[in-house]
């Protein structure tokens, strides 16, 4: 089932938006191994979304290559690619009313095409996806009546209805509260661990990435800044330099499987935050600067 070789791989990948002097992705070589939970990190504008679009074929590289299963992404027939890769994009605005079930059923398009009617297989895949995301009881609700967390689950369910080997999510927890954010990360790691899916997540949440990802990649101005395990990448010097803000790294206190994973604590620059009273200037030393 698991294909040989990397899920995604890029070599000297470059992408320049028209009219921009600096490439958004600048000579990036990286790979995502099958079965991993791969977190893509980086400051605003570092190229996370651009890299995802290149990996997904929404953009065409201006130089270098981006492959999925050793074949350039742009050479994949779109429907076949969509049977392998399920995507939860960042921006989606629901203009016309849709129920959760209708939305999730769209995930069957790569299997059904423009004409074939929904069969038993399709209905099973939809039901399984609804169950996996724990939204069975919401199936007939209009999307507009859902909370942000529920809507996000519906979009993950749509991607699961594609029955993909690989899931790609662009900031899936950007607008979610702690409860829904935790639930989303736990769901995604379960999908990797129990269902053998490769999961790629672009996120701003360094701490959840450090706890749940098996590999992380840190982008800085379109270039690879660091890649490896969370312990290797989530380092005070590296994070401080890339985000240009002093941080300390502490170990997650547990309990749980992720006890001891590195957690980023941004420091107050001017000595002591508003709530810390007279704790002094010791926290203000910029760790990442030289």
């Amino acid at each position, binding site marked *: 089932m698991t294909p040989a070789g990397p899920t995604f791989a890029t070599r000297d990948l470059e992408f320049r938006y028209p009219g921009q002097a600096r490439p958004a992705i600048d000579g990036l070589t990286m790979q995502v191994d099958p079965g991993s939970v791969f977190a893509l990190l980086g400051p605003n504008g570092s190229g996370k979304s651009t890299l995802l679009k290149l990996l997904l074929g929404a953009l065409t590289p201006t130089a270098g290559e981006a492959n999925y299963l050793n074949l350039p992404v742009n050479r994949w027939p779109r429907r076949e690619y969509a049977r392998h*890769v399920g995507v939860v994009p960042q921006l989606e605005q629901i203009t016309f009313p849709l129920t959760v079930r209708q939305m999730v059923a*769209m995930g069957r398009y790569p299997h059904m095409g423009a004409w074939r009617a929904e069969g038993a297989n399709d209905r099973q895949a939809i039901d399984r996806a609804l169950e996996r995301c724990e939204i069975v009881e919401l199936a007939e609700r209009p999307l507009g009546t859902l909370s942000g967390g529920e809507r996000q689950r519906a979009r993950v369910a749509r991607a699961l209805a594609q029955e993909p080997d690989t899931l790609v999510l662009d900031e899936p927890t950007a607008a979610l509260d702690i409860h829904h954010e935790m639930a989303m990360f736990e769901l995604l790691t379960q999908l990797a661990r129990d269902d053998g899916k490769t999961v790629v997540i672009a996120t701003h949440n360094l701490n959840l990435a450090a706890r749940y990802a098996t590999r992380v990649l840190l982008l800085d101005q379109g270039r690879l800044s660091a890649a490896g395990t969370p312990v290797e990448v989530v380092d005070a010097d590296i994070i401080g330099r890339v985000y240009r803000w002093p941080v300390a790294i502490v170990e997650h206190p547990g309990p749980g499987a992720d006890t001891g994973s590195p957690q980023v604590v941004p420091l107050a620059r001017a000595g002591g935050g508003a709530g810390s009273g007279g704790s002094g200037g010791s926290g203000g030393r910029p760790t990442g600067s030289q």
Partner: protein
Amino acid sequence: MTISTAVRWLVLSLLLAMTLVASVFVGAADLSPGEVVSALLGRGDETTRTIVLNLRVPRAALAALVGACLALSGAVFQALLRNPLAEPYILGISGGAAVGAVTVIVLGLGVQFPWLLPVAAFAGAIVAMGVVLRIALGAGGALDTRVLLLAGVVVGAFFNAIILLLLNFADANTFRAAVFWMMGNLSGATWRSVSLLAAYLVPASLVLMALARPFNLIAVGEDTALYLGTRVGTVKLVAYLMTSLLVAASVAVSGVIGFVGLIVPHALRLVWGSDHRMLLPASMMAGASFLMLTDTVARTIAAPAELPTGVVTALAGVPVFVVLLMRSTK
């Protein structure tokens, strides 16, 4: 097919049949139902037969076809642009088609080369669509309802100015005909115009209905549609070409009739949801009924004078537009 789906199709079919009967039986000439029926059967006196078979029936048929074209293009534009207010008239596309057609009329080429009018209208529609989309994308993205509408309105105003400029060079008769036609009018209906429009509508509507599922996906988002396996660029290109063709053909035979593509799909979405596999054929049926009805009103409400059909649809459409706009910008 569930029972409620069957009932809805039945209601639409009845509506279509009733409006067709109404528009053939009701008119400025005072004909009894019996006279109309015997004329339809090829009996009765010459004048009645002419009124029924060469005026009322082709006019009803033309209203039905134009209504179907406009409602179908409206529904498709709304999906492609993810904007419930998108409509050929509001987007300035009807205006572009009108410039093409008026140019041919003013140059006096319409009589000599009858095929030139729809071709020029098509060229005008394509140019208008390109300009509006370019402006909207350049000024902040087609997703922004207000920018897109503003671009459409501004381009529409520009085309109106061009038409008025062209009409300065027209003689009085051409001028009157062109103005009347710009307000949207079905009085020129002939069997020739009916068959011309049918020749466009049948293939274009089949192509568009075949793309109904991709439209469902694009209505959620273009990236989403791509990631679900749609060839978004190809679908959009084909859809824009087909809708331009439909709008241009409608404008060529009936002038500029606005708001049909706004009112009809909106009403259907309220009762039937937004699955384009249903919405597109239903829009064609309801659009046909709607325009036959409005045209019957336009022909009879001030008889013997006749109102331009486009005036009636605008009077009905503007309030709907305002309500939709207020809802969409909330």
